[in-house]
């Protein structure tokens, strides 16, 4: 039976992993390569690495880092952070990543999505849409690690991405990030219903029940989370975890 993917999303700052709340208050989580090793042992489905300062600093995520992950990871992984052109994507894929995650460039150079999909195949191109609610409760899109915003509607933007050839969409709620309050199911569902592409929900997962809700109510094709996989307990101790095979089976039955 088809089982949706469960995907840890790891944020990179300099050479270390960090975790945030609402894209702020970054805490150091540790060495990324050891995290990969542990996720290997836990048979995690897939990993996503996002370099959160790359775009702002006008540079690409470190290829040396991608190569190191490629050497160690037993599962497919996607990489994002400062990707601006076809050469960037080619370098990243050559260094072992299966897919690339595009964020800022999707707003600043939308045509690029098409070029990327044509060159490498849609299934290699993931667009990450970061969404924040404004004062009136309306969704607005943000990028460059939520430092810039545009007033576009996330649903229309997702449809545009589909049109331009993206293979997958991650829909991330900035407000819910790191809060354990549950996904923004309404947002995820609206996007999932408006495109025929797989949609991955991200932001706010508090426990495994949220994963079930994200698929059943949110109509997502896969679930992603950050805090849930790296923190444990009331003091947010850093401990990497991932559901067991039987937990995964029960989650989506």
């Amino acid at each position: 039976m088809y089982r949706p993917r469960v995907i840890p999303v790891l944020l990179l700052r300099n050479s270390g992993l960090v975790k945030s709340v609402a894209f702020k208050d970054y805490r150091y989580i540790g060495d990324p390569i050891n995290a990969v090793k542990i996720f290997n042992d836990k048979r995690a489905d897939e990993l996503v690495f996002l370099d959160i300062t790359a775009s702002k600093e006008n540079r690409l995520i470190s290829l040396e880092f991608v190569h190191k992950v490629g050497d160690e990871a037993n599962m497919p992984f996607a990489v994002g952070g400062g990707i601006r052109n076809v050469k960037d994507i080619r370098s990243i894929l050559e260094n072992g990543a299966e897919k690339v995650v595009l964020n800022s460039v999707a707003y600043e150079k939308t045509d690029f999505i098409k070029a990327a999909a044509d060159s490498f195949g849609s299934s290699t191109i993931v667009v990450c849409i970061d969404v924040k609610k404004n004062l009136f409760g309306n969704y607005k899109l943000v990028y460059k690690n939520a430092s810039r915003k545009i007033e576009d509607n996330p649903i229309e933007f997702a449809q545009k991405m589909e049109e331009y050839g993206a293979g997958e969409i991650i829909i991330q709620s900035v407000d819910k990030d790191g809060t354990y309050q549950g996904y923004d199911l309404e947002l995820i569902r609206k996007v999932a219903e408006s495109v025929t592409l797989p949609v991955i929900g991200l932001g706010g997962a508090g426990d495994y029940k949220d994963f079930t809700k994200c698929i059943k109510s949110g109509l997502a094709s896969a679930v992603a989370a950050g805090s849930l996989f790296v923190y444990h307990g009331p003091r947010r101790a850093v401990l990497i975890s991932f559901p067991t095979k039987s937990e995964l089976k029960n989650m989506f039955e």
Partner: protein
Amino acid sequence: MLVIIDYGLGNLRSVFKKFKELDVTSIISSDIKVIQAADKFVLPGVGHFKYGMENLKKLNIIDILNEKVITQKTPIFGICLGTQLFSKHSEEGDCEGLGWIDSEVVRFNVSDRIKYKVPHMGWNNISILNGNILNTNINEEENFYFVHSYHLICEDQSDIWMTTKYDYEFVSAISRDNIFGTQFHPEKSQDAGLQLLKNFVDL
């Protein structure tokens, strides 16, 4: 020597790493001489069918592959796009394939485009339709990793090795004599995938 054919598409390193894990030396190459000397092949691939065929043509290796695979019966294992290329023709780019398997590659035609998103991306299990020597220790309960928008339709049912259900049953693996191919990625399918690759290596 096991040769992983490099025609510019697909994550060759992953496949190479898996063979290394099995203590098998493999070589990534598109060199005619290397292909000539090979005793086993892997044809990986992710991307557009048309580009795949064009790249193979540009590299001038289709003739030697025909000779090795069809005439000399050198075992070959296709992965994802690689398997699709074995077919006669694909809708993707309306393009002719290698024609080694009597099959057509079509886009997923699902009944509910919201419920069944395309590409089919994620974990799914398999049903073995026809046994073959690579079935050792392969469990139908195991999940394998899929990422594709197109799948094969086989004219000859005896070519179908495995099927998988995603809205409907589709061909997820083919085999005919020395030609094997999976739609899923064994190199990304953890232990079950590794077992499959091991079975191919042990041939």
